């Protein structure tokens, strides 16, 4: 029986606040500035993208005069819709597969004797460059086995890429899960399925959703492996990449489409966080 990782359930007394010394205050200021800088670094380019998507002359470097021309072009030439829908579908499947298979492993891993080496084995693919993994899979599936590539091989590559991330996200919650709760439920006569559905799953759900989100996002943006394993499938990144060598302007794709995708992603992530952490449990 392993020692539990979570604390006891008694309500905590409020700790006494110790006044911070000068050095500590300075460090706090540095940390705050650093954090703020990080946020600016992340979001300023995205905002800029949005501003440029409504500028008449986005390649001139300065915003304005403002126009919706690029969005109009995006909706008259709709060749990007197919790839976008395909990418969304592929992302959803990869996300679900990562969450489901990751859950099986992440539940068992903390209780195994060889958990260290096993975890290392699962995470090793993180350190393999994408192109190499793609080339290796290509040589194996296409050249050695002679299979016809398509969506299935794209899925396989995306899955192999996203799985370690998903597993890490899941392990955060499964290692904190107190197995004594299951023992207590068993004592009260709950079968294995009831124990999982009523007790374990609700407690590790944030990890499961994070794993699915990781799977989805990593698949949705993947290019390096997809180039090699596509068959005739076209994902959105592939479409944009092929467009980049076409002798025509892709400003609508780059600025307008990226802005739309960004807005929708933020909305999705916002909603999922709200579902996970935002609301008090309803009765």
């Amino acid at each position, binding site marked *: 029986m392993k020692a539990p990782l979570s604390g006891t359930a008694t309500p905590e007394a409020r700790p006494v606040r110790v006044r911070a010394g000068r050095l500590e205050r300075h460090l706090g200021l540095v940390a705050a500035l650093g954090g703020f800088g990080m946020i600016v670094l992340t979001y300023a380019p995205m905002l800029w993208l949005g501003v440029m998507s409504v500028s008449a*002359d986005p*390649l*001139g*470097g300065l915003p304005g005069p403002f126009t919706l021309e690029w969005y109009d072009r995006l909706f008259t*030439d709709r*060749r990007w819709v197919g790839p976008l*829908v395909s990418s969304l*579908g592929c992302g959803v499947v990869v996300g679900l597969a990562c969450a489901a298979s990751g859950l099986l492993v992440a539940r068992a891993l903390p209780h195994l004797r060889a958990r260290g080496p096993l975890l290392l084995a699962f995470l090793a693919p993180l350190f393999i460059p994408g192109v190499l993994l793609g080339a290796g899979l*290509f040589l194996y599936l*296409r*050249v050695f086995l002679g299979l*016809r*590539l398509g969506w299935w091989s794209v899925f396989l590559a995306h899955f192999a890429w996203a799985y370690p991330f998903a597993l890490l996200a899941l392990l955060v919650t499964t290692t904190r899960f107190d197995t004594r709760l299951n023992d207590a439920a068993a004592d009260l006569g709950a079968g294995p399925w009831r124990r999982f559905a009523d007790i374990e799953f609700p407690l590790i759900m944030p990890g499961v959703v994070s794993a699915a989100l990781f799977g989805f996002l990593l698949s949705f943006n993947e290019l390096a492996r997809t*180039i*090699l394993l596509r*068959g*005739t499938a*076209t994902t959105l990144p*592939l*479409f944009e*990449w*092929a*467009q*980049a*060598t*076409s*002798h*025509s*302007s*892709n*400003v609508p794709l*780059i600025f307008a489409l990226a802005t739309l995708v960004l807005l929708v992603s933020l909305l999705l992530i916002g*909603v999922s966080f709200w*579902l996970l952490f935002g*609301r008090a449990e*309803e*009765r």
Partner: protein
Amino acid sequence: MNGHDLTKPPIRAGLSRRAVLKGTVAGAAVLATPSLIGRAQAATPTVRIMGVETAALDNWASFEKETGLKVEFTGINSDPGIFRQEVVANAAGERIDIFLMDGGIEDELGAKGFFAPIDPAKVKGWDAAPASVMNSPLAQGPDGKQFGMPVVMNADSFAYYPEVIGEAEPLSYALLFESEKTLGKVSLENTWLTSLPMAATYLKVAGKQAIGDPSNMTPAEAKAVVDFLVARKKAGQFRTLWSTFEESIDLMARKEVVAINCWEPAVKELRKQGKDVRYAFTKEGYNKWMICAYVPKEAATGARAEIVAKALSGFLGGAYAAQIAVLRGYATANAKAGLAYAEAQKMPAEDIESIKANIAKIEKKFAAPLFWQNAAPTNIQAIEAEWERFRQA
């Protein structure tokens, strides 16, 4: 837990998680429906085309009407390495009826038996196209076999700001490689495919270096050209290399560079922005390129061969020629058919004008002797290695 609190009416303000989740599932189902419905109609035969986006129409409807085929287009990058991978390693010919690729690749893939020769007799409009174009080295294999059918073509040089250069056309490539006027304000395309032959052409015509064929150099010739380019790089001639269409426009729009060996549509875009930029007529010659249609050997027989013949005729037909001319400013091998189509369809006067201008431009530029772009030169590895040396210098 699950106990019902009977003291309060069961009314919830706002959204509940469950409602949100239900709504999400329903929404996803609605979104997925069109893709399921779209599968149920396959009466017209489909031609499956894989090719570079440059030759793709943004709307195939009129092409489909003219040929009686449905078009399924898979886009790929314009890169000989990608062509090789798709055709050789990925055996794309099993599922693709026509490849649209940069001309020259047939020297390798045709000769090795991946493409089937095209029979001109089976393609409507072949005889109407100029023989000099149809028999270009970019459409024929090394033994003169007709593996490719020219689809889209142009003759590239460089864009420049007349106010900075202050010379009358025809201009010399010296403005790109060796000029005080443009020192530090030149950008070259980040590929050996265009930038090396242009430098070679300049050196050859200026008599600075003996070069046989700028687009099919020997390792020694390539080394001499790159030696020259490295020296110019050290002298500060080049500001940067560009890789995407947008980048080339951006560099010129901000006047970060004043001369650039970009694609012609970039000049179209810049002029739209009100910039006085021109695309040079040159003394030395042009990077004459074409995108050709190639037929994989698997599609050369049986029912697929008929579909291929119809589609090839379509690429020499009026609908395609008129659309691609307006879309990109490029001519097809049978550009006059495009003009006839545009006039018959009563297309806008400005479009008809641009089609006419295209035809005139192509005739003038293709008459220049140098040089044909070549995606598969004999010493490709040596040339690639030399180009890498220039990039790293």
